[in-house]
Structures are given as structure tokens and as C-alpha cells.
């Protein structure tokens, strides 16, 4: 059901990855995403798999959760694979029928592209799974702090982001509740043509918007009554400080980045066409 959407959710557990400084996780996630794009070879993806696998293992987040997080991109994934598979004409033709042809290059590109997309989502969801929304904001704020000099409202942006993240599960739950309530009144979301189905969404969307506004209003009120007035002069109870584990994580990720770059680019290893 709708509860199964896991993207952007925190998974509570005690692990090395959970304990890392949020800044480390943000930077390392970015580096991981970069690493997927600076190479395109079988060995490179093997190394990326090892790195990602190790992080998932260390994070104690069940693999099932991460796979579930991939569900929303299934359509995009299929689309990319099909497009690449049939439209890339490169190298020898493997299969040919009517106007369609699958070439070596097409197979290679579509497979690698699929892996890339899945790792992109899995890599970033590991970050949100292991970092609480608050930690994420704090890390982001600290990392982007230099932009303050350019008059970028870093604190405000970070706060908005964390609120948005925090609201995802709340609004999902709310949607679930409203859907059930309307179903109890005989609403039908499954049958009918596309226009009827779009119309059937009205009884869900109107209460959902009303409730989102109400919650936003309540939250603003609660923040103001606790004297929130933006980031200026605001101190932290637990300021972020790098520990030895954080340094190790940085070093390991940098080593990984160098290795994947060198191996992926300069080691000529090929298995069949990949």
C-alpha cells in the first residue's frame, strides 16, 4: 500500500553509518554519485557494488527496504532500458526482427544505465535512511554555510528542506487515512476510465490539502511560540564535530573514488561485450 513508499524515510538503528557525522554522509553520498558518472566499465560497477554493499551492510538497514525504495523509479527504469536497448546502434547486431535491432552497444548502455539509476537512488536513500531529518539539515546547513556571504539564506533553505522531509511520512499516513475514510463511504479508486479515476481523487486531495495547510499553520505557530526567528544568533545544543570515525569514512571514500576512477578508466578488462 501507500505506506510502502520508503524514500526519504529514516530507519532507526544503531550502526556505524548512523553514528557518522551528517556532513560525512552528505559529502560521501555526493562522491558516490560522482563515482558512478566518471567511469563506465564492468570493473568500475563491480567496485561501486562492493562499496555500496559494504555501506548497506554496515548501516544495518535491511536490503529489502532499499529495494522497496527503488519501486517508484521502476517505470523510469524500464523506459530508459527499452529506449537505450532499441535506439542505440553501436557495434555488432545481436538480435534483429522487423524494424527493431538490439546491438552490442545498446545492450551495454541499457544495462549500465539501469545499474547507474538504481545505484543513484539506493545510494541516496542509504543517506536518508541513516540520517535523521534534523541531522541532514544540520549537516547541509554547516556545509553550505560559506554561501551566507553571498546572501543565500542557508539556514532558511535548510529548515524548509528538513520540514519537507519530515512531512513526507506524515502526509503519506494522512493520505492513507483519508483514502480509507472515503472508501468506508463507498468511494471507488480502482475502476473506471482515466477521467473517472482523476475525479475520484478529489475526495482525497481536498482534505489532504486542507490538512497540509492546517499542519503548516500549527507548525508555524508552534515554532513562533518557541521564539523561532530564523538562523541568526541561533546556537546548537550539540554542535557538529568530526570524530576519528568520520575521518576514516572520508579517507575510505576518497580511496574508493580514486580506485574506481583509475580502474574504471584505465584497466582494459572486458567480459564478452561488457
Amino acid at each position, binding site marked *: 500500500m501507500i*505506506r510502502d513508499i520508503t524514500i526519504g524515510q529514516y*530507519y*532507526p*538503528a544503531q550502526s556505524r553509518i548512523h553514528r557518522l557525522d551528517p556532513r560525512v554522509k552528505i559529502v560521501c553520498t555526493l562522491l558516490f554519485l560522482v563515482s558512478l558518472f566518471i567511469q563506465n566499465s564492468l570493473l568500475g560497477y563491480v567496485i561501486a557494488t562492493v562499496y555500496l554493499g559494504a555501506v548497506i551492510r554496515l548501516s544495518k538497514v*535491511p536490503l*529489502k*527496504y532499499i529495494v522497496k525504495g527503488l519501486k517508484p523509479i521502476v517505470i523510469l527504469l524500464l523506459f530508459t532500458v527499452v529506449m537505450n536497448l532499441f535506439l542505440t546502434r553501436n557495434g555488432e547486431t545481436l538480435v534483429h526482427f522487423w524494424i527493431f535491432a538490439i546491438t552490442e552497444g545498446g545492450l551495454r548502455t541499457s544495462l549500465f544505465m539501469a545499474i547507474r539509476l538504481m545505484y543513484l537512488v539506493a545510494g541516496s536513500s542509504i543517506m536518508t535512511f541513516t540520517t535523521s531529518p534534523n541531522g541532514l539539515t544540520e549537516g547541509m546547513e554547516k556545509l553550505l554555510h560559506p554561501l551566507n556571504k553571498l546572501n543565500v539564506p542557508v539556514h532558511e533553505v535548510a529548515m524548509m528542506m528538513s520540514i519537507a522531509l519530515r512531512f513526507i511520512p506524515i502526509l503519506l499516513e494522512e493520505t492513507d*487515512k*483519508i483514502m*480509507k*475514510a*472515503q*472508501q*468506508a*463511504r*463507498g*468511494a*471507488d479508486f480502482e475502476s473506471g476510465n482515466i477521467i473517472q479515476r482523476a475525479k475520484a481523487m*478529489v*475526495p482525497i486531495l*481536498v*482534505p489532504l490539502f*486542507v*490538512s497540509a495547510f492546517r499542519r503548516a499553520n500549527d507548525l508555524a505557530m508552534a515554532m513562533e511560540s518557541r521564539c523561532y526567528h530564523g538562523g541568526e544568533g541561533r546556537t546548537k545544543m550539540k554542535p557538529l564535530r568530526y570524530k576519528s570515525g568520520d575521518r576514516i569514512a572520508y579517507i575510505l571514500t576518497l580511496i574508493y573514488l580514486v580506485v574506481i576512477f583509475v580502474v574504471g578508466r584505465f584497466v582494459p578488462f572486458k567480459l564478452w561485450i561488457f
Partner: protein
Amino acid sequence: MSIALEHVSYVYSPGTAYEKHALKDVSFEIPQGQFVGIIGHTGSGKSTLIQHLNGLVRATSGKVLYEGQNIYDEGYNMRALRSQVGLVFQYPEYQLFEVDVLSDVCFGPKNQGLSPEECEKNARKALELVGFPEKYYKQSPFELSGGQKRRVAIAGVLAMKPKVLILDEPTAGLDPKGRDEILDQVEKLHKETGMTVVLVSHSMEDIARYVERIIVMNHGEKMLDGTPKEVFRHYKELEQVGLAAPQVTYVMHDLKERGFDVSPDATTIEEAADEIMKSFRG
């Protein structure tokens, strides 16, 4: 004509860190026309339980029988079931969406496939049943007070003419006056239409005054099941699970302990008063 649960268990998100046994082997039967209270503290599984009664949540194991038929049978008409077993959720006013009160109440009957005239007739009847003033029929439901919104939402379910009405914490967030009004109206409904009513609450006081039978839930299990008098005799056990018997039960027990000749079974203030007067006269 009854609803029965047979060994119903329900597990949330099985196989993950969030796995939670919301219901464990719950069985009971509610005959047609009974006024039942389901009680339990937050997280005891009462809301999950009632969502089984109209098939919104599917049990992990066990059976739900409505009028003797298993609702999990293939081809069972769930929508027909939902119009017979009306469920009013907690804070039902958050599901209002139409431009005016009357059309919102019409939503249910419309989904049943009735003609616009019939929808309106049923809607008007339902609004009348909950005591909603006619002059506000054409007003936007978002402009009403909390208590009035709730009435509209309850009417929205009543308009489907259910045989069973389930109310999840219908008085949550209302002031004492609003609470009494809603509960009195529900009681009136029960008396006038002979409808089965299931009232979910965590307040014993609310429930004791109205219901014929109480089912106590604790950690997803049925803990007690009986008439209010029977259930409140276990007031010590109720306390252990974070519930309490009505205040009068305590007073009566204290009186008895100090040597007054009263029966401690009184569950409402009126009964208690009678009992005390009797012991004075006798």
C-alpha cells in the same frame, strides 16, 4: 445478522524493523442490535480492530464473518459490505471535501448508485438524525465549528443507511457539552433504528453510560468481554493496563469496604445514588 471475528491476527510491516503485532488471535461476535463499547488505551489495537469489521484492513490470519459469510471469500462484494457496516473514523471532520454540507453527506449514497433525489432524501434524513440545523445545509463544511463538522461527517456515513455503525473515538477533542450531545444522539439512533452500534473509546466514563457490552483490548489482545458491571468488577486489572473504571465504581468499593451495605456494581452516577439511598432506607 451479526459480525463475527474468528482468531483474527494482524501484523504491520512484517519482516522489517517496524514489524508490530497489532492484533493477536482476537475472536468475538456482535449480534445485530447490540450497543458495544470497545475500550483500550492508545496503541492497544482498537482502531486496527474496527477496520477489520468492514474489510478496510485484511487480517494476516483468521476470518471475519458478516451475516455468516466470510468477507475474505473470493468475489465477496466489499463495497456492499462497506455500505452496510458504516465506519466513522477518528476526527472524521478531516475527510470533508465538498462545497456544501448537503453534497458532502450525499457522497456516500451517490457511491451506492442512488438517484440524486434519493441521495438528497437520505442525506437530509441523516442530517436530521444527528441533529444538524437545516439552515446550515448549504454552508461550506469548512466554515462550521468542530462539533458541527463532526455531526456532518457522522451523517455522511449514516446517509448510506448502514445496519452497523462503528464510531472511532467520536468525542475526541470535543468539549464536555459536545461530547454528551454526540453520545446522546448516538444512543437515540440506536434506540430508534435498532442499529448495531460499536463505540470505540478510551474513556470508561463515556462508555459505561451507554453500552450493553464492553470489550477491553490490551496489546492487541482481547482482555475482557462482558457487560459493564462484569468488566468493572475487574477494576484492579484495568488499572494495571492503564485504564480505569468509572469514578463511581471506586466510590462504591470504598463505601463497601467501610462497612456500608451497598453493591459495588453500580456503573453510573444514577445507579450509585439509588444504591446508596437503598442502603440508608434499608
